[in-house]
């Protein structure tokens, strides 16, 4: 095992998959010489050349659509959106084309591509460099959506996404890039898509979340265990579409109290669907109403530091929500 950062894990996954399979290539804005605005593709241009680490025109629909065409030809493109906020011009290509390709052609054509997009707030990015846009795509059968919460998952999920025969959206939390460090295996491995993961076993209540909120929840849970003897069970969704229903049901039943957390706006978010799954399957196992903690239903977080902080889900809010639910 080695300890690396979340962004190093992403970089390693791409490098190893490009070494492993000559059909894998990266395209996006400034991914080449510069190595990406966050340097996620750092070093790949030097190792694999300009054809396999392709700087594209500033046009997101073309980035996604060219990837669709290349994937139909048999390549395994990794299309980078510079920020998840800028994926919207590519939505038609992702939803109308990539997601439906296999189904609409009755399995004649397929579209094995990965779209990587840095999402999430807390980096002074203002309205358009902070959003969580995953819910836009999370009712589109044909797509798979993954969100890693630590370096090991980041690497294993990206490798799985690249090897997947269908289109995968890979949302990576930009605040996690250098904030999160962790151990990753030395050998080649994948983290299976479609499987949630118990990140902490506990008895009193269950938190189900994903992305950067996992790390925040784990820290809060540790403190609460020591300070207030509250035992928190934490399920990391990892794949947010399609959801791992079995794991969600099992985690909810284990404690009978469920707190759902997302940093996305509350209404219409991923956790609403998780709540529906719990409500459908676990009503008589619950000891308290399902509780949700999310960002407010305002368009996106402001740029000013104090206002951004006010908008975001914080460790204090997580702690308060857990304590309240534990006492129910």
């Amino acid at each position, binding site marked *: 095992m080695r300890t690396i950062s979340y962004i190093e894990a992403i970089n390693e996954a791409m490098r190893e998959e490009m070494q492993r399979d000559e059909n894998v*290539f990266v395209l996006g804005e400034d991914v080449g010489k510069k190595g990406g605005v966050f340097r996620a593709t750092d070093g790949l241009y030097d190792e694999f050349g300009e*054809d*396999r680490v392709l700087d*594209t*025109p500033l*046009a997101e*629909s*073309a980035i*996604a*659509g*060219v*990837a*669709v*065409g*290349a*994937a*139909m*030809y*048999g*390549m395994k*493109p990794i299309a980078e959106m510079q920020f998840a906020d800028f994926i919207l*011009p590519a939505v*038609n*290509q992702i939803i*109308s*084309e990539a997601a*439906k*390709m*296999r*189904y*609409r*052609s*009755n*399995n*004649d*054509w*397929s579209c094995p591509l990965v779209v990587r997009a840095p999402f999430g707030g807390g980096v002074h990015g203002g309205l358009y460099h902070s959003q969580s846009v995953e819910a836009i795509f999370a009712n589109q*059968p*044909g797509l*798979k959506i993954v969100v890693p919460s630590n370096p090991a998952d980041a690497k294993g999920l990206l490798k*799985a996404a690249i*090897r*997947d*025969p*269908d289109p995968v959206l890979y949302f990576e939390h930009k605040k996690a890039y250098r904030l999160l460090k962790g151990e990753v295996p030395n050998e080649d491995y*994948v983290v*299976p898509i479609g499987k949630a993961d118990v990140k902490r076993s506990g008895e009193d209540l269950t938190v189900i979340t994903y992305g950067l909120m996992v790390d925040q929840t784990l820290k809060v849970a540790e403190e609460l265990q020591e300070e207030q003897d509250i035992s928190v069970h934490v399920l990391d969704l990892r794949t947010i579409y399609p959801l791992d229903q079995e794991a969600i049901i099992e985690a909810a039943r284990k404690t009978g109290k469920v707190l759902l957390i997302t940093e996305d706006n509350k209404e219409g978010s991923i956790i609403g669907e998780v709540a529906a799954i719990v409500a459908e399957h676990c009503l008589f196992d619950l000891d308290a109403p399902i509780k949700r903690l999310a960002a407010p239903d305002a368009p996106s977080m402001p740029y000013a530091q104090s206002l951004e902080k006010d908008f975001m889900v914080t460790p204090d809010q997580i702690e308060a929500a857990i304590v309240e639910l534990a006492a129910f």
Partner: protein
Amino acid sequence: MTVSHKEANLTDQQALDIYFSMLRARRVDERLWLLNRSGKIPFVISCQGQEAAQIGAAYALDLTKDYLAPYYRDLGVVLEAGMTIQDVMLNAFAKAEDPNSGGRQMQAHWGQRKNRILSGSSPVTTQVVHAAGVALAGRMKRDDFYTFVSLGEGSSNQGDFHEGLNFIGVHQLPVITFVENNQYAISTPYDRQVASATVAQRATSYNMPGEVVDGTDPIATYIAVKKARESGRPALIEALCQRLTPHSSDDDHRIYRTTEELEDDKQKDGLHHYEQYLVEQGLLTEELKAEMEATLKREINEATTYAEQAPYGSVEDNLRYVYAEGEKL
């Protein structure tokens, strides 16, 4: 024909083959309308008035290896590329054996991997960036082929047209973008759709040649596409055609077009003019024409009967292929 088939280095037989392909597309299309109007198929969208452009272009390609990203009017193109009349009828009747989609998509949403026809959708012009991706991938693999992508003039206003052609131009990819300008985007005429005098002149912005051709003349279209294909560079070709039918079986073009205009379009019908040309050249005799018509009638009848009697996809399979089945990481 402004240039004869001989001047275009086409043999007499090739000139006749082009005619047969045009006639085949027209007769299949006409049958589709009959089937729609008699309540047997729910929808039809037409190629009538664009056969000369479609067959002239397809004839200039290497259909043993070129990739095609057609749009919904390209019945002539897909038939030339190897889709059979029976396939087209299975598609129209939305039956399980439809190679385009197994009855999942509406009529004329073409796609057939074995003939390198990319699967298309209903939002228009998304295929232009796919063509760029196929061509880019082909270059990366050092494979030698052209990609042919077609669309209507109204569609050329979509962002994907600009994003796709700019990408193709930046990388000088071997892609022929073929705009079949039939003067109408449903009911909206050219001058309300496109600001420039021609679509082809937009090519300047994409660092590729742009050319307007008479899309009612299969030989002129053939020459333009052949030249583009031999250039090794991208090209934007605009073929001026007429739309001889309403937009689709759900449209009535008499609401927005005058009787005189519709009559005038009929006079410009490329199929008719090319037929006259072949008669004048002494190539097309009454007997030969009758033979072609009889062959097509038989094939279309057989295909129609087969498709009508073929089973629909089973409901058991209705939810299959959302994701890959049985493929491992």
